[in-house]
């Protein structure tokens, strides 16, 4: 990538926008740390997959989307939900299993939904939501809307049959879908070297006639830049786009993972490219923020998270009498 060229484009960022983006990344980072803590206290159960280290991807991509755009994610979706503006209280309550949760407590960490934000979930079947994204984009095209459907998935999903079927269908039907692959080098415990014949995933796009690009997922500005280009291409050409964000998760795949598959040294290496301090440095150097403001942002994030914890603690258990609700719809017809 031509580093210099990207540098001068960054000046356009103003202080307010810069601080908002930093605040989002910090909120995500600390929300995930708190989730880990609550998990060890058995407040959160089931599977818990944390986004620590990949914040720049969710924040960078989602800031380029409008309210009408649809978002579908995997089970590692706390960061995306927070970046999309889903209420942290509702997310924490959901992980506590309380009915005040964003999915009424029925989905848990892997299934956060918010129809008002066009946030169509955490989807826990790897690549299961790829065809669904193509369908939503197909519907948008038929309804002559000009929104984008953005589908996040890991590099693991790119090995599923549904990835190939979806890429082909998207290109064949020329639908406005943005496929974003968060390549964090490990599909649970298997390195990309052992799962992909071609590890530069962006090379797969052209095989289906889909414009593709790769970007440093640890650099928020680069991700923002690449996403802006992707969305512009989709809207102008009415064709799908495939963006690969090379990133890394600092924590284990889930809470109960001894990380036998990677070296501690590799984790330390990637921690040096932590997107949050990198972006903080940029803002400080560009006089777009002060150290005092950063501490304020951190305190505000902690307060917001503490409020979310209390909200979840005070949440209520759904009465077992409602067990069979939401199996079928309560409205007669649509």
């Amino acid at each position, binding site marked *: 990538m031509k580093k210099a060229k990207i540098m001068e484009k960054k000046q356009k960022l103003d202080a307010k926008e810069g601080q908002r983006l930093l605040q989002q990344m910090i909120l995500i980072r600390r929300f995930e740390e708190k989730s880990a803590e609550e998990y060890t206290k058995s407040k959160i159960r089931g599977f818990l997959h944390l986004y620590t280290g990949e914040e720049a991807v969710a924040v960078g991509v989602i800031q380029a989307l409008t309210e009408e755009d*649809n978002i579908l994610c995997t089970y590692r979706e706390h960061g995306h939900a927070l970046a999309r503006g889903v209420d942290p209280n509702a997310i924490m309550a959901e992980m506590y299993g309380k*009915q005040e*949760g*964003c*999915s*009424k*407590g*029925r*989905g848990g960490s892997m*299934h956060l*939904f*918010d*129809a008002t934000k066009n946030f*169509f*979930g955490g*989807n826990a*079947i790897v690549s*299961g*939501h*790829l*065809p*669904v*994204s*193509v*369908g*939503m*984009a*197909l*519907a*948008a095209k*038929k*309804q002559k809307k000009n929104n984008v*459907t953005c589908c996040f998935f890991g590099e693991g999903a790119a090995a599923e*049959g*549904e990835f190939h*079927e*979806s890429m*082909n*269908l998207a290109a*064949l039907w020329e639908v406005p879908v943005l496929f974003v692959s968060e390549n964090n080098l490990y599909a649970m415990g298997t390195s990309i070297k052992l799962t992909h014949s071609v590890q530069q995933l962006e090379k797969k796009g052209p095989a289906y006639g889909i414009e593709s690009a790769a970007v440093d997922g640890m650099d928020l500005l680069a991700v923002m830049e690449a996403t802006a280009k992707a969305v512009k291409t989709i809207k102008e050409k009415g064709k799908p786009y495939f963006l690969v964000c090379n990133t890394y998760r600092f924590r284990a795949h889930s809470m109960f993972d001894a990380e036998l598959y990677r070296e501690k040294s590799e984790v330390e290496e990637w921690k040096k490219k932590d997107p949050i301090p990198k972006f903080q440095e940029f803002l400080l150097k560009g006089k777009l923020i002060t150290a005092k403001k950063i501490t304020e942002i951190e305190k505000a994030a902690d307060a917001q998270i503490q409020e979310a914890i209390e909200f979840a603690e005070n949440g209520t258990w759904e009465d077992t009498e409602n067990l*069979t*609700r*939401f*199996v*079928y*719809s*309560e*409205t*007669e*017809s*649509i």
Partner: protein
Amino acid sequence: MSDMIKITYREAIKQAIRDVMQKDERVFLMGEDVGNYGGAFAVSKGLLKEFGADRIMDVPLSESGFTGAGIGAALAGMKPIVEVMTVNFSLLAMDQIVNNASTLLHMSGGQLNVPVVIRMGCGIGRQLAAQHSHSWEPFFAHVPGLIVLSVGTHEDARGMLLSAMQSPDPVVIFEYTFMLNLEKEIPADAGAVEIKKAKVLREGKDISLITYGAGVYKCLEAAEALGEEGIDAEVVDLRVLRPMDEETFLASVKKTHRALVVEEAWKSVSISSEVISRIMEKAFFDLDGPVERLCGVEVPIPYPKHLEDASIPQVSDILEKVKKMLKP
């Protein structure tokens, strides 16, 4: 009595598709060979010319892909009819149907409806051998969140789809391909039919023949023959395999005190297993003898005609079993 018209099962289905597409812009048909080829079994012949490629969409051989896309389009406000050419290929789309279509409403705490209709050709009887002769009504009828319909009569072929398109929840419709050429009479103004209840197609007092799909016309034929031998058989068409309407067949058993369940699916863990359990639970003291059943023999369906015929209940089997039950 309004005047009747003669119509094939195929024509009835096509009329239903045309009706719903004319009435609602959001409806479109997507499936393998539904457009230019005119439908694998010619059900959608002519629809491409009438509605255009945008609403009659040929799809590549990616069952998971296009079924998932149908579900996505439904999520985003469209009303797709996904045609899975035959139920035999539906296994490839099972993850989309079970983990997305039937589950999203629940997992999202009631926020997301998936108003998709998935039509599947199925049934045995033209020597298609094991991989093309599956009866998986029991698979789908097991999944909460799905509405599962079995089109056993021409009225239902003409009317079920119209009601299914109104449903906010996913509907799976089993259509029996070997009946496509069969001609029957239905009212000329036949339209939508309700999709919540089973139906007594023939009144009787000596025994209840409970069936669905391909078993319906066989049981009606058997009941006529039994009538001549002084046995008055009642025929109950289940029609809706999920959520199953038990009141109708329980009422029938309470009247006749005897029941024979007929289906083509393999016997173990089948629809008959469920029907008989409910009779045991709720009509035990009305039984004057054990409930019997005639089901598919548990073998991958063989190619040769005589073996294929032997692997599923025929009219003669129904007659013989009923007589054995009533005159031991």
